[in-house]
């Protein structure tokens, strides 16, 4: 299995398109960092502007590395699924397109093992992409902007998290984001089994993610109760909940707490169930597939 995984990883990292994602993330993160370095005040004014009449806003302190990282993740984690689909959608369909799939299944390994190795390799790629993003958006932002307490602007609440209570939340958030993006990878992987070239699964995955994200974000009560709780895109956002703190009776934040950990765990379980469903279906279909290419 380890040998299979190494071969699959070699295949992924041999293709130039794999590095497009790393390059794209670096470019996007740097663009946001440069923009906020020179005009970050405008952004803070945009999100906290309505408070300026009654409160003094310490703009310089708010624009710190932790805040910048959260802004970057907020902007990018919606778009990263597209980069994940680029590789995951190519996992099986790419082999079919090149005509190497039939040759591959003649090797003395089971189709299940083959699929698991391919999916594991895709997961490793996803984790590496997230680690790269964490390095750039957190570490680089901290180096450029320094650290301070972190402000999280929600729809109707502003959270102020003490600086020594932030880093573990990012570790948890990146860990969760890896699972969330693995769900997208599993979807692209499943679609890849049905296709003969990678364009179809990549475009289909992107389309599904876009449609589901729109449904997740629309504030329509009919969808809120019926569709939204079952869409994986609704649960992909749960990484943010690591930055929502519990409060005491007086409304004071309690350090080291998470407002609703059971909700995060429920979302995590739903995402894991989706991964299991997508991967299980992909393996099942692939095992019975009549491979002609």
């Amino acid at each position: 299995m380890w040998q299979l995984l190494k071969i699959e990883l070699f295949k992924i990292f041999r293709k130039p398109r794999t590095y497009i994602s790393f390059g794209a993330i670096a470019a996007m993160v740097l663009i946001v960092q440069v923009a906020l370095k020179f005009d970050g005040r405008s952004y803070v004014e945009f999100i906290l502007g309505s408070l300026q009449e009654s409160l003094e806003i310490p703009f310089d302190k708010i624009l710190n590395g932790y805040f910048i990282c959260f802004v970057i993740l907020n902007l990018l984690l919606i778009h990263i699924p597209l980069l994940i689909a680029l590789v995951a959608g190519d996992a099986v369909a790419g082999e079919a397109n090149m005509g190497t799939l039939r040759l591959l299944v003649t090797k003395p390994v089971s189709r299940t093992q083959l699929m698991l190795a391919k999916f594991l390799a895709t997961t490793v790629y996803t984790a590496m992409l997230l680690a790269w993003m964490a390095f750039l958006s957190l570490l680089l932002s901290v180096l450029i902007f320094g650290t301070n307490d972190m402000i999280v602007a929600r729809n109707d609440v502003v959270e102020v998290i003490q600086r020594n209570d932030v880093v573990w939340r990012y570790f948890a958030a990146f860990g969760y984001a890896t699972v969330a993006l693995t769900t997208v990878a599993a979807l692209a992987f499943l679609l890849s089994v049905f296709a003969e070239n990678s364009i179809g699964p990549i475009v289909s995955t992107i389309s599904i993610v876009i449609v589901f994200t729109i449904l997740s974000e629309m504030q329509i009560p009919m969808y809120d109760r019926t569709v939204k709780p079952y869409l994986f895109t609704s649960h992909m956002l749960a990484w943010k909940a690591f930055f929502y703190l519990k409060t005491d009776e007086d409304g004071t934040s309690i350090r080291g707490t998470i407002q609703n950990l059971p909700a995060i765990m429920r979302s995590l379980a739903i995402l894991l169930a989706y991964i299991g469903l997508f991967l299980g279906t992909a393996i099942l279909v692939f095992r019975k597939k009549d491979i002609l290419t």
Partner: protein
Amino acid sequence: MKNKTKFLAILFACLLSSLMNAAAQDVETILNKVRAKLETVNDYEAVGEMKTNISFLKTANATVTVFFKRPNKLKIKNEQGISLVPKGSVSLSLNNLVSGKYQIIDGGKEKINGKEVAVIKLLPTDETTDVVLSTLYIDVESMLVVRARTTTRDNGTNELEMSYGRYAANALPDRVVFSFNTQEYKLPKGVTFDYDDGSAKKKTAETAKDKKGKIEIVYRTYKINKGIADAVFK
């Protein structure tokens, strides 16, 4: 008979006028005594624990330093992190309320926490000042202001509650509760992409109701009249 009635009326008017005058002098005396106490402080640097209670703001208690310099400079700084302090916090210092020229009105007596206090209203004679009306509730036994309500042009009405201890001789409180008006905070969900963990709806309803904020500072130490550079207040 007519002359007698006239004489009585004049006598009554004189009595009333002298009584009113005495009352006015009385509140002025009280205010002067309070002012004298306050004027023993030219500047101070106080370290304390600040607790913020604003419906839309979730923050932990913070250690803050409050700087004051006469006549009306006041700054709250959180050296360790971020604290969002109210804009009208300059009223945190009573010096700012009692300095300047005012028309003094006797507001009678009231009871706060079982203690009788004199109520004095101050109307600024300068119409351009931000403060429109200040009402001071003064404990006449100790000559300390225990409550102050200030109506301003820009920031609405705010209220200050004070309790004294170690620094009462300088009219500096050990604990201050400052209540003020806040704006409603709301960002479109399309901008924040919030995760709905089920507790959001309840919170929105609570937030919409309460537009009053409150900060409480419990002072640990004061450094009085040691001199503070103007740069601190920038």
